[in-house]
């Protein structure tokens, strides 16, 4: 028994079609207030390209392939880590009127530099 994955042309088109439809539906539900975190979050999601980069680099057999593969993993890792850090930070800031204390806790931990811009009285 073995489990190689093999996706032919038409199957790929089906996958793309269903996923695009799902993406359209999922994203359509997101309110405008969250559009920046959404964009940053979807930016994080396509960071999965780093997995492809690792696969490619592990299979590299010439110095040229190794060099480009290294760049692929480097950039992909940056995409993933940066996308996550930024999205998580932004979402932690969204609080309803009911939870004002929770916000300051998050803001202090996540954005010490940004907090300085808020009034000295508050800080």
């Amino acid at each position, binding site marked *: 028994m073995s489990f190689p994955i093999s996706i032919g042309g038409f199957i790929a088109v089906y996958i793309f079609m269903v996923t695009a439809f799902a993406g359209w539906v999922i994203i359509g539900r997101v309110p405008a207030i969250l559009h920046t975190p959404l964009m940053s979050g979807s930016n994080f999601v396509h960071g999965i390209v780093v997995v492809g*980069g690792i696969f490619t680099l*592990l299979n590299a057999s010439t110095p040229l392939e190794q060099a480009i593969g290294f760049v692929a993993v480097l950039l992909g890792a940056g995409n*993933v880590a*940066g996308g996550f850090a930024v999205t998580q930070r932004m979402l932690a800031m969204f609080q309803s009127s009911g939870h004002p204390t929770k916000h300051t806790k998050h*803001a202090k931990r996540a954005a010490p530099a940004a907090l300085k811009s808020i009034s000295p009285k508050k800080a």
Partner: protein
Amino acid sequence: MLITISQLIIGSVDLIAAFLLMFGLWRMASPVTAPSGILVAGVGMLAAVVASFLYVFTVDAAAKPHLPLNIGLAATALLIGAGIAWWSGRKVAITAMPQAVALFNGMGGGAAGAIAAVELFGSQTHGVGPLVVTLLGALIGSISLSGSVIAWAKLDALLKKPLHVPGLQIFNGVVLLACLMVGAYIVFAAVGGAAPVLTMPHLIEIFFGIALLYGILMTLPIGGADMPVVISVYNAFTGLAVGLEGFVLQNPALMIAGMLVGAAGLLLTLLMAKAMNRSVAKILFASFGPGKKRKQGAIKGSLKPVQASDAGIFMRYAKSVIIVPGYGLAVSQGQGKLYDFVKLLQAAGASVKFAIHPVAGRMPGQMDVLLAEAGVPYDLIVQLADVNEEFKDADVALVIGANDVVNPEARTDKTSPIYGMPILNADQAKKCYVVKRGDGKGYAGIVNPLFYADNTFMVYGDAAAVCVSMTEAVRGLGAPAAAA
């Protein structure tokens, strides 16, 4: 045996990861569930990255001797890339968020392009179909990389003015066509055995060179205010490139995650374009601004400057205030000071709302994040469609650092470049204060009749400084506001 087990584990983990990424985005539907959504997606991503090291058991025979070095390289690249990006993602100011997202997005496009490059240089792709898909992913990924870098430079004010060269769009079309032709030639040379004029590596280098050049040329003429759309387009591009390379690598998780983002980016792009009442094609391929000279009708009325302290005290006694924030607020980093002032008004019994235009700022929803950073609860932040009817009952509309999104010309003047764009009805409020640094025009380069209206008063100054003066003036009054 080891191969079978590692394939089984990678396949299952990737399946779970793909589900968690989708589920994470699903939870973005509300500010309440969104923070846990990104954590869920993060767990999926982490699992997929860790599992991908099991590929060491499945590598090609040719790569076996290089395996120890490759593992070291992969781990090093992962640590360096993730480390630097994590650190900068944590440090970057909230106002600089659009730049950061543009840059991280460009990295993803670059990674997809680099994967395609390895496949092409190593001649690992066979057959017309896979080759075309690889090249298409390479093209889109490369455009996304160089275009995002230009977008980042523009947003970071390293590149100040949009480039306006006559005939640039035609030249760009030729460049894109040349790129497609080189790509087609690569396919013919690889599959049909057409005698290459140049060696294959050279052809591939030329292909990537032209693709990167096109990304730069395509982005240079686009102005700062169109950046929400551009970032959204490149986000979709990177997603698409990742999806296509996922097919080349036969990795369904990449295909699904990539296509998901491709669809998301497309939808957001269309929403943005609709909010600006312009077509996506016009934003990307025709910039407005200089060049189209138009005679604007004579404007009735005059600009009436007032002191920030007077404006602040007037609002202290208002019952309802709607605030329209714009990019100027982000530039001056005045969001926290604005909210301090708002808290005084609320303590004095006023109802205060923030009205957000879909294209306010340099990224869709940038104002929402900015206000959230200052601690404004999201239930005080309302979107254009939900708030526009309330302006006529509001005592004061406070326009702070915004211009084109409150220009009533968009409703009435058919010759105006922004005609038809939905605007916030700040002009219908009983009184309107406009906080501006000077008499400059907005991005669209047109005079705003709202500023000349009888019930509009201009408060000149930096948004943050004006908020401080207004706060001090209201605090100076003592009374209930002093309690805040």
